[in-house]
C-alpha cells in the first residue's frame, strides 16, 4: 500500500483544521478588537512610558512563571474572595499587551489588579513597599518564597558625615544593609514598580459588568448575612499583593 499523496493531504488537512480552529478563527473573531469608551475614558488605557519599560523588566525576569494576571469568574476558585478583582478578566483587558502574560501558575498571588490593591499614593508608601518587597520579599511578607532581586538595586557607599541620598531605600530591620552603605533602586526597579501600579482592570465593561455593591443582594440567592460572610475574610484581611 502506498498512499503517499493521500497521507500528505491528510497531514496538511488535519493540521490546517486545528490551525483554522485555534489560530485563524480567534483572529477573525477578536483579532481586530478596538479600545472602547468606558465612562468617558478609553479602555484599556495606554501605559505610561515608564510602566511600558517596567513590562520589559517583568518579561525579562519571567515574573509570569509564578504570577498570573487573570481573575477567574465566580464559581471558579476564590479569586473574588481573595480580593484579586471585583470582576472577572475578559479579552478587552489585554488589548495593548505584547506579550500577553496571563500566567499559568500561581506560586505567587494574582497581579491583575495589584495597582488597585496598592495604588501609587502621595506619600509613596506603596512605592516604598514595592521596592522593599523586591529587594527583600521576606522583609515585607514574612514567609514569602519569592526570590529577592538585589540586582535591581545598587549598593552605594555613603560618604562619612554626608546625608543619605534622597533616593535611598528605607530598609526594615531584617534587610538592613551593612553600615556605611545605602541601597538605591535602579531605573529598572522603578520601572517595574510603575508597571505594577499600571496593573488595574476593574473598569466595568459590557461583557464584564461591575458586580453590585455588597449588601444590595441582587446577585445572589443566599441570605444577605451569608453573602457578607463570604466577602468577610477578604475585606478584613490586609491586601496581599
Amino acid at each position, binding site marked *: *500500500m*502506498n*498512499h*503517499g499523496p493521500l*497521507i*500528505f493531504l491528510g*497531514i496538511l488537512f*488535519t*493540521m490546517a*483544521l*486545528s*490551525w483554522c*480552529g*485555534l*489560530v485563524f478563527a*480567534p483572529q477573525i473573531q*477578536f*483579532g481586530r478588537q478596538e479600545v472602547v469608551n468606558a465612562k468617558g475614558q478609553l479602555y484599556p488605557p495606554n501605559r505610561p512610558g515608564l510602566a511600558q519599560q517596567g513590562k520589559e523588566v517583568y*518579561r525579562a*525576569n*519571567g515574573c*509570569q*512563571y*509564578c504570577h*498570573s494576571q487573570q481573575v*477567574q469568574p465566580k464559581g*471558579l*476558585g*476564590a479569586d473574588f*474572595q*481573595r480580593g484579586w478583582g471585583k470582576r472577572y*478578566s*475578559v*479579552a478587552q483587558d*489585554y*488589548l*495593548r*499587551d505584547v*506579550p*500577553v*502574560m496571563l*500566567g*499559568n*501558575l*500561581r*506560586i505567587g498571588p494574582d497581579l491583575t489588579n495589584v495597582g488597585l490593591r496598592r495604588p501609587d499614593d502621595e506619600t509613596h508608601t506603596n512605592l516604598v513597599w514595592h521596592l522593599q518587597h523586591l529587594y527583600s*520579599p*521576606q522583609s515585607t*511578607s514574612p*514567609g*514569602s*518564597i519569592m*526570590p*529577592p*532581586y538585589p*540586582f535591581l538595586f545598587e549598593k552605594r557607599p555613603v560618604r562619612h558625615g554626608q546625608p543619605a541620598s534622597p533616593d535611598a531605600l528605607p530598609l526594615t530591620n531584617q534587610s538592613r544593609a551593612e553600615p556605611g552603605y545605602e541601597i538605591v533602586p535602579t531605573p529598572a526597579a522603578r520601572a517595574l514598580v510603575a508597571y505594577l501600579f499600571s496593573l488595574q482592570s476593574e473598569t466595568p465593561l459590557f461583557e464584564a459588568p461591575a458586580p453590585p455593591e455588597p449588601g444590595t443582594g441582587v446577585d445572589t440567592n443566599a441570605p444577605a448575612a451569608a453573602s457578607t460572610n*463570604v466577602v468577610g*475574610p477578604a475585606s478584613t*484581611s490586609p491586601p*496581599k499583593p
Partner: protein
Amino acid sequence: MSASPAASANRPPRQPAPSKAGGTDSSLSQIEASCRTPVLFFFTCGAGWLLWSLAFAFVASLKLHFPEFLADCPWLTYGRVRPAFLNMFLYGFASQVAFGVAIWLTCRLGRAPLVSPLGVICAGLFWNSGVKLGVYGILRGDSTGFLWLEMPRYAFLILFCSYALIGVLTLITFHQRRERELYVSLWYVVAAIFWFPWIYSAGNLMLVFWPVRGVVQVVVNTWFTSSLRELWLGSIGIAAIFYFLPKILERPLYSRYLALYSFWLVALFGSWGGIFIGAPLPKWIPAVSTMGSVLMVVPVIAVATNCYFTFGGQFQRLGKNPVLQFIVFGLVSYVLAGLLGALNALPPVSAILRFTCFQDALVILSLFGFFGMVMFGSIYYIVPHLTQQEWPSASLMKLHLWASASGILLFVASLIAGGIQQGLALNDPNLLFLDAMKTTLPYLAGCTLGVILLAVANVGFLCNLLWALTRYCRTVCPCAEQFASNRKPAITGVTR
C-alpha cells in the same frame, strides 16, 4: 481490523513488520553507514543538552525552597532558569534526539541510504549553536515571554533554517526509499517532519515577529505548546513505540488499521487542548479545547490496546530486555498523561487544578516519562546497530533505567500531590495566600530529589554513550588500532 496473528496472513506478503528487516545484507550495512555519523551526533548532543537542562531544573527547584539561593545573579533568577531548563530540554535534547530517531527510522524502514549525511551534520551543528544562542538570550533577559517559545528571534532564524535542511534531506531520503510500502511508524515520522516547521514557524511568526492582538496571542501560544507536545514529540515517540515494540518481541504489530486510526485521531485532536474554562476568552474556545483534550483519550486507548495485544501475553519478556522496559515505561506514561490530561480539562477538576503545579506534572509526565523514556529505549537499540558493538556497560544501563524511572515517578507524584494540595488551599478563601503556599512546599521537595535521580541516571547514560563512541572510534580508525595494539591488555579489558 485484523484480530489475531493468524489473520496477518491476509496482509500483503511484504509486510514491513520490523521483524522481517534483514540483518546482514550489504545494502543494510550501507544504509547504516550512511546515517551513522548524523544519528550518533544527534544522540550525543541531545544527551549533553539533557544534562544541562537537568542542572537548570535542579537550580529552579532549589530556588522554591531557598529563595535566596543564587539570587544575586540576574542570569540565574527563577524566571529565567525555568524557561531555560524547558527550552534546553525541548530544543536541545528532545528535538535533536527526535531528528536522530526520525532519520534512522526513515533510512531503515525505507531501505534507502541517507541523502547527504554531511549536510545533516552541518545543519545539526547550526541547530546546536542556535540552541546555545537561544538559551543565552533567555538567560540574558531577551526571552520573548511566550511559553516554550522563549528563545529570541535571532535564535529562531538559525533553528528554523537548520531544521529546514534536516527536514528536506530526510524527506528526500523518504522519497528515494526502495521499500515502497509504508510501515505505520513511517506515517508518524513523515507527518511529524511536516508538522514541526508549520507549528514552529506559525508560533514564532504570529507571536514574536508580527504579534497578533491581545489574547489571541494566548490562544496561539497554547495551540503551539499542545501541537509541539502531541504532534511533534508525540508522533516521533509513537513511531518509535510502534517500531521497537514489535521488533523486540519478534511479533507483528497487532493491528495496522488500529494504528492508522490512532494516527488520524492524534492528528485531529492533538493540538486542541490546553485552554481552560475561565480563561479571558470567548466561551467557545475553552469549550472546544476541553473537547479536544477529552477526545484525545480515544487515540491514547487505541495505542494502548494495539500495544497490549502486540505483546500477546508475553509479559515475562519485559524482565530481560532493558530496551523493552524503557519503551513500556514510556507507553504507560503516555496513556497516563492522556487520561490525566482529559481529566484535568473537565471544568470541575480544572477549577481546582488550573493554576497549580499539577499542570507541570502533566508536562513532566509526557516530556520525560513518555517521550524521554521512549527515546532512551530507542537509543539503546539503535546505537549497537550503528556501531556493530554491544553497549560497553550493562550496569550503567541498568542504573539509567532504574534511576530515571524512580526519578520520574518521584517528580511526577510529588507534583501531582502538591498540585492537589495547592489547588484545594487556593480555593479555600479563609486561607491566606502565603499559608496556602506553605502547605504546598513540602510536597515539592520530592521534585528536587527526582531531578537529582534523573541527573544521576543521565550522567550514567552520557558516560555509557561516550564510552561506546570512543570504543567504536578505536575500532574504525587505523591509527587508533595501532595505538590499541601497543596497549593491548588495557584495551581488551575495556572491550571485553
